[in-house]
């Protein structure tokens, strides 16, 4: 997760310490004072969902699936995660609000010192449920919207889903729950991007997370509508420009990019062109502290039946099950050759990644997309959109004295 607003506009955020080891210089209260040593854990609490989105990485269905962790098992899992030192648990699905015990689980996570956050389609949220979750200790709700009304509803498989999601967002904001947008960019909705930001910033949303499409679950079935290299460059550039324009108007919006660490190299290049060498070098150092693609390291996923995955998008492969072994035991078990190699992937990446000047801030991008496209988890990410001239040469910034 890369914060455009932090890197280009110096907008402080709660995640500065977690992401960049930059808590000391941030004016915002911090999720953690120290850069994370343990993964943020996405927990897909259910496979059930009231929508049927075209890009759903979890392959969610309208009916609940057998084998879901029970409430008590879930609490034990949260104990497990807290003992291991996970900083954040992201309740996801399916649609997590389909589980009636969600507030109980959120409260339990908060009591155990985990930061509970939520990923939801927003359509089941009303003011009462938002208040209940807020009172349980929920710290943040990310609501998925993938275009202006007509396009969003088509993508999500339900007429009226956009209005219901906006109602859900308003409900959260009304009860004082920090709320943001999640938007997966594809060829179908790239042109709606600015319109959605303008519309939802008027509603009161000030945090916008833009996801590149990953090729997991139903996302793998729509890779043909993924952006081309030129379209991706244009979309990310527009997000950078837009963030700066909002800032220049005195409006602060937090914008983040998720799921493609070629963005890291692009941001350095963008800053060098638009803001000068000093800023570009500073951004490079932030991104090096961030550490590049987090698969198998700074992010983990536990699905509805307890299987542990390398990221939430990579549900087709599981390292183990929390009903068998503790999460920490599974995550620390580097006798698994894939896990071990992913954690030293710089030595194994191939093709254009191997000699890229941005290797240490990107780390090869998505290994899942590489696998899907090239049948090789160490091949280049097909979504890399850096030009050859940008990738050539030595790393762009010398280490700062403090690094």
């Amino acid at each position, binding site marked *: 997760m890369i914060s455009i607003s932090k890197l280009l506009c110096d907008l402080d955020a709660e995640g500065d310490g977690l992401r960049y080891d930059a808590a000391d210089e941030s004016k915002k209260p911090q999720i953690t004072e120290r850069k994370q040593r343990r993964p943020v854990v996405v927990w897909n609490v259910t496979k059930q969902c009231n929508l049927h989105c075209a890009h759903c990485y979890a392959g969610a269905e309208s009916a609940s699936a057998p084998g879901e962790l029970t409430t008590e098992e879930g609490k034990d899992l949260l104990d497990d995660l807290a003992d291991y030192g996970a900083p954040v648990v992201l309740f996801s699905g399916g649609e997590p609000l389909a589980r009636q015990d969600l507030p109980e689980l959120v409260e339990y996570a908060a009591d155990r010192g985990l930061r509970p956050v939520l990923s939801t389609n927003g359509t089941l949220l009303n003011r009462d449920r938002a208040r209940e979750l807020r009172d349980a200790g929920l710290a943040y709700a990310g609501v998925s919207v993938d275009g202006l009304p007509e396009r969003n509803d088509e993508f999500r498989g339900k007429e009226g889903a956009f209005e219901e999601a906006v109602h859900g967002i308003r409900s959260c904001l009304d009860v004082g729950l920090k709320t943001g947008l999640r938007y997966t960019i594809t060829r179908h909705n790239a042109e709606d991007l600015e319109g959605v930001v303008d519309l939802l910033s008027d509603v009161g949303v000030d945090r916008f997370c833009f996801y590149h499409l990953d090729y997991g679950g139903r996302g793998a079935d729509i890779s043909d509508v993924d952006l081309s290299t030129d379209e991706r460059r244009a979309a990310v550039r527009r997000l950078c420009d837009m963030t700066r324009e909002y800032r220049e108007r005195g409006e602060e919006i937090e914008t983040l990019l998720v799921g493609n660490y070629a963005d890291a190299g692009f941001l350095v290049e963008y800053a060098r062109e638009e803001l000068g060498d000093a800023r570009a070098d500073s951004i490079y150092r932030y991104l090096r502290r961030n550490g590049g693609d987090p698969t198998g390291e700074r992010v983990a996923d536990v699905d509805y039946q307890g299987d542990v995955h390398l990221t939430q998008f990579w549900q087709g492969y*599981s390292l183990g099950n929390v*009903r068998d072994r503790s999460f920490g035991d599974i995550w620390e078990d580097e006798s698994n*050759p894939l896990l071990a190699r992913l954690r030293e992937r710089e030595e194994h990446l191939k093709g254009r990644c191997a000699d890229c000047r941005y290797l240490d801030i990107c780390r090869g991008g998505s290994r899942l997309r590489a696998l899907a496209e090239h049948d090789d988890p160490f091949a280049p990410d097909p979504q890399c959109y850096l030009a050859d001239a940008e990738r050539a040469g030595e790393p762009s910034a010398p280490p700062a004295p403090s690094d």
Partner: protein
Amino acid sequence: MRHVGSVSAPTPEKAHEHASRLFGWFADDVWVCESSDIHRFSTHSLGEPGEDATPESGTERRQHEWDE
């Protein structure tokens, strides 16, 4: 032989292809077994304690047992 996790796939053949893509660089042979054919025992418990079970071929007491 090393157990390295599980894959999801619609058929055994697809599962083997998937597992081979993930681990072919490491292993001479990749074996897959349908999860429905596996009976698993664990000393680790999650949630309410499961039914005690003793593997037919052994004497070690186990805490938790379920069919996949």
